[in-house]
């Protein structure tokens, strides 16, 4: 009986060893492949000429950047879209034009928001999230707004290029579904 037990114990040990030779690297490999790529930093880029932006009416612009998709490299591809809203120039402050920039990524579940036909609000086609032209959450028609924060504003400034004013945007992405604006890692 002693020998039988020893053999049973040995069998268990050997089979565990064989299984772990496959299982340990297998799990490591799976988790290495599903690890999310850190989004590549996109340098600030000019997206539109200031003079092409009508005051108070949002205009959509594309952000291009280098994108890595697992093994492929796309040197220049659209990586995101933004909404530009040119504001009434504030004469008293003495400054010229003022432009705000919002990421078109809905903070709820990352669909792309579009402009409502009235051109007075943004609407997310997925779950009817609504946002005002200042990017704020709108509560309308007694419907619950699924987003728990407003559209994410992006750093944006006006730069002169060959004597012409351009809007320059720094593209960023934020974690969806939470009320705080947290940069995606």
């Amino acid at each position, binding site marked *: 009986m002693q020998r*039988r037990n020893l*053999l*049973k114990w*040995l*069998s268990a040990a*050997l*089979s565990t*060893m*064989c299984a772990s*030779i*496959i299982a340990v*690297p*297998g799990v*490591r*490999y*799976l988790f*290495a*492949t599903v690890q999310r790529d850190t989004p590549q930093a*996109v*340098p*600030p*880029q*000019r*997206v*539109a*000429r200031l003079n*092409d*932006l009508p005051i108070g009416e949002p*205009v*959509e*612009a*594309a952000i*291009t*950047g*280098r994108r*890595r998709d*697992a*093994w*492929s*490299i*796309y*040197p*220049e591809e659209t990586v995101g879209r933004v909404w*530009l809203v040119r504001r009434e120039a504030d004469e008293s402050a003495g400054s010229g034009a003022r432009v705000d920039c919002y990421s078109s990524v809905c903070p709820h579940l990352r669909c792309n928001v579009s402009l409502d036909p009235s051109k007075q609000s943004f609407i997310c086609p997925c779950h009817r999230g609504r946002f005002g032209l200042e990017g704020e959450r709108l509560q309308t028609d007694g419907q619950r707004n699924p987003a728990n924060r407003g559209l994410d504003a992006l750093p944006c400034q006006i730069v002169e*290029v060959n004597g012409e004013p*351009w809007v320059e945007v720094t593209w960023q992405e934020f974690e969806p579904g939470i009320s705080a604006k947290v940069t995606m890692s």
Partner: protein
Amino acid sequence: MICGLRDWMNDRTGYREGLKRLQNRTVPEGPKWGYTPAVCLLWLLVIECVTGFLLMATYSPSAQTAWASVHFIERDTAGAFIRGIHYFAAQAMIVLFAIHIIRVLWTAAFRAPLELVWATGLLLMPLVVVWAITGNPLSGSVIGMSQIEVEGNILGATPIVGPIMQRLLIGGSQVGHLTLTHLYFLHVALMPVLVLTLLAIHIWQINRHGLSVTGKAPDGSLAVSYFPYQTIRNLTVLTMILGTIAWLAWRHGAPFEAPVDPQITHVPRPEWYFLFLFELRGYFVGDAEVVATVVIPIAVLLFLLLLPWLDRRLPRPVSAVFRTVIVIGGCGVWSWLTLSSLSRDWKDKELLASKEKLHALSTRARELADYHSIPIEGPASLLRNDAKTRGPQLFERHCASCHSHTDESGTGIVAETPSAPNLFGFGSERWIAGLLDPEKIGGEHYFGNTGFAEGDMVGTVVDAFDGLEGEDRDNLTGQMRQVAVVLAAEAALPNQAAGAASDIEAGKVLMTDELGCADCHKLGDNGELGSAPDLTGYASRDWLIGFISDPRHERFYGENNDRMPSFAPNPDDPKAGVLSPADVALLADWLRGDWYEPDRPTEPVPAAKPSPQSEDAD
């Protein structure tokens, strides 16, 4: 709670009885090491399925992505190990299968009532081999893809059904996207279904006829239980096999050559387990080839399938002799064919050279892919656009009829008839210093064999040194060195550190004033074009591209050009030249030693240029 759940489960499934039967299994003739190959084969099949499923999580079958996704797997240590296990376990299965069949033949374990066990087992063997060969090309690399092309053609030569089968396998008339998806379908769907179906019949028949359920041995004594006495034997052998496989996977990994590209020529050979057929085919030339590739294999298989019925007619002692002859004869013929093929290959210089070349290309392709990732044009473009790979090929084809490219020891590309400068290290300080050396400029490595041997440049350099002795001579040599520093700075070769800015400035003054280079050559704002090559940006990428494209241009030799052809004379019509602009650039980069090297620091890949998106704004 747990107990209740178990009862509930048992009421519905009756699993306890099943477990009990499994535990009470016995081995009527006692535990044997001879039983282990079959069990290990089953476990290796499980390992193949598990590692295969894991690889499926990343692999992407298409001509564009196959190599790229396998490279992606290989970049991860764990991924490379899993792929290695998958590869070597397949080889082990083929070996174990052969051992298993030999044991069954030897012990006559195919006799009634085990005919179905024998037949299904025998049919499993070719199926497993086909399963393995449908896997080899999936990596989209040179060897696997050329193997499937040849295998497709062999299939195509089969009478009647051949051509349609070939088109089905290849997915059209040429190897491409569909070849890979079809092979993938065969590898992960059709072959597994066929193999598992036959295997189910095989195991069901063994359980029905093989293992004693009475718990009695043939002599009536109590039979030994399967667990743990046979189990420990199985596990011992399995651990040894898996250990070997894991060691191979860890140390060597599965083979992964350069991505398939019609531009890469190599001598293809089948996998080791197919070498015997490859060798056999050599005995049947022309139309008779189908005898070796189809008729003989099918005849052998049919003969073995019918063995239980043939054996039944033979008296026992004759049967023993008969089976011995089959085993020894079969092993002998297989080994003899395989060994004669291998020994021929070992002596084949062309094959060895081809293997070595492919190995170098494969290393380079992986190196480039590690650095650049895979461009959108596909993995083959990695090597096609690599100066280190393409440069020597282009040079040998287009330049080496006159130019050599050999280092001090004489190794490199030797010109057919050296009649132009040796371009090794062209643009480096050392090369230019040699050009300005009165002993060398008229020698075979520079202008010696050219139309300029008696020309102004050689004359000027030789005359300048003529009659100079001692300090004066050393002085001039020093000045020439300074010129070399200036020109090397113009070239800015990636392997050459630039000289100090003050030295370069001083050198430039020297060149225009004292040495009078600018009398014939242009250098920056001094001198004029027309009589000798422009020294502005001498040997830079731009300069070299211009020079190779058209040395007759006034910026270079103009009317004085010796025999150097213009390889791409018309920039407006890139198709008109002998070389495409891309090839000229590759050649220039190679001559300048300008290519990616993993141990050489290079600038990071440039980020996408910010560009105005006026279209979107409008």
